[in-house]
């Protein structure tokens, strides 16, 4: 199923709009004309088998990779081709599949570093609040490299929270973490979405997807093969074949 083209313009104030986005690496098309509109406060899950183009799609949306074709709009502003830092300042925050912390800085400094392009004066207080929200206050003076895998995921999420973005992209934020940390992350997502923040979440944990996502898109071979609620997706034959690898 190829994605329908989206008629959009700078007047469209959806927090995030992807219009027929294409990305190729040599002869491989990693993202093949994906279109997506995300509403304010919506939590959209992106699922699909490994290599289906989910993380590449995130990198395109956040500016980490240039798009080959298509357009990307943030809050009605066309940010296609903009450098990563400018897109980030436009209100998008992301985590990486492998936590990308500032290893030689403490947890507090990591949080403060996330505020350098924002409210710098209020950053120390905000860092304390975010650390408390994510329950990492007890390690706030530790080096980031000394944290456990789960704590590193929390810190990376915390760094995104420090910036108060309009759209947050979470790439497998609960992969391999303790259930307690998973619970903390879920609570924070719920709390933030109530403030109008939009989430796009790549996740393999179907329980989490069921709990938190309003809508799912399923990717396979760089294309969106299905879109809808969790129940719709779970009963979709094409998804079962492509993603779950079984015949109905």
């Amino acid at each position, binding site marked *: 199923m190829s994605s329908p083209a989206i008629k959009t313009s700078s007047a469209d104030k959806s927090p995030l709009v992807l219009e027929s986005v294409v990305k190729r690496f040599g002869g491989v098309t990693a993202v093949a004309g994906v279109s997506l509109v995300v509403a304010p406060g919506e939590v959209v899950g992106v699922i699909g088998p490994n290599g289906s183009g989910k993380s590449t799609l995130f990198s395109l949306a*956040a500016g980490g990779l240039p798009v080959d074709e298509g357009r990307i709009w943030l809050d009605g502003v066309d940010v296609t081709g903009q450098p990563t830092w400018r897109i980030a300042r436009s209100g998008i925050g992301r985590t990486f599949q492998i936590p990308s912390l*500032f290893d030689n800085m403490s947890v507090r400094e990591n949080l403060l570093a996330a505020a350098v392009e924002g409210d710098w004066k209020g950053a120390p207080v905000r860092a304390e609040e975010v650390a408390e929200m994510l329950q990492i206050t007890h390690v706030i003076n530790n080096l980031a490299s000394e944290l456990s895998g789960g704590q590193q995921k929390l810190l990376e999420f915390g760094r995104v929270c420090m910036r108060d973005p309009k759209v947050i992209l979470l790439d497998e934020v609960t992969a391999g973490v303790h259930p307690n940390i998973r619970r903390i992350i879920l609570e924070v997502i719920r709390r933030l979405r109530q403030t109008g923040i939009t989430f796009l979440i790549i996740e393999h944990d179907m329980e989490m997807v069921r709990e938190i996502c309003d809508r799912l898109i399923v990717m396979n071979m760089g294309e969106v093969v299905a879109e809808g609620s969790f129940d719709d997706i779970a009963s979709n034959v094409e998804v079962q074949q492509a993603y779950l690898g079984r015949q109905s």
Partner: protein
Amino acid sequence: MASNPGQVRGNLFRLAAIAVGLLALGVVPAFIDPYSLRIVTGALMWAGLACAWNIVGGYAGYISFGHSAFFGIGAYTTAILMQAGIGMPFLATLLPSVVIAMIVAAIIGGPTMRLRGAYFAIATWAFAEMLMQLATILDITGGTGGLSLPAYLNEFFFYYTMLAAAAASFLGVWYLIEYTRFGFRLKALRDHEPAAEAMGIRTNLVKVQAFALSAAITALFGSVFAYWTTYIDPMSVMGPEITDQMVVMVLLGGLGTIWGPALGAVVLWITNRYIWSTFGDTVVYLPVLGLIIAMVVLFLPNGLISLIVGRRRGRELISRILRKF
């Protein structure tokens, strides 16, 4: 950004220690002979130079082999402006020296700081070589014959000038790195450049700013050095050993630390002077320099400063920067 009581106490202690240290350095000339005073003056200069190189090498994570060019720019700017035809007073030449070095660094840093690891190191080395060769053929620099400056034989003046420049450099860099947005941007891009960009940090601009700041401090010491020695030529102020020594001093003292470069500079400069006074020239010094580099990387990755204050991340920090090669 000192936001908790522990940090505030730590900073007050550091400020008190700095005040005592500056006071002690202030009375040093009263207790030592003129020869020793020259050695201490040299140690202050090298400490300042190591501090300057550390901004790019230790905090931005980019290994520059071109800093001798900025030292030379400072030295030649002062020398040229003090020549008979122009006759500017020494202090008035400092600002042009620093500004010219910053402009050149911004021009060179713009394209080269987009390069990674060894490519950046080679580009900066080539730039320094090019500038040194230029200095050997231009009339304004005196060619290979060099330039003489008006002699001012007052060792106390140069000691206190070097002390003021070194203290201003270290305190300025300390403040910038630990307490300002610039310092956090710089450390963030060193540790993970894509993540820094994803947080809105314009990394290419920050790298060029760091390069320009580093060049400015280096040029400042080049200016003072030229007036101090009263004679300069391309090799004496643009030779590659100048950069090599900065690199080793920082590695020896502690890469990416505030006070490590000062410690490394003092230890290495005293070693240099000891070898010079014992063997009569500094040729023996070069293999010693190489040996120190190997020993530090293998056995003391945190630098000498770790023996005093303890750093947990030296090995990883060196690895992170070397991985860019």
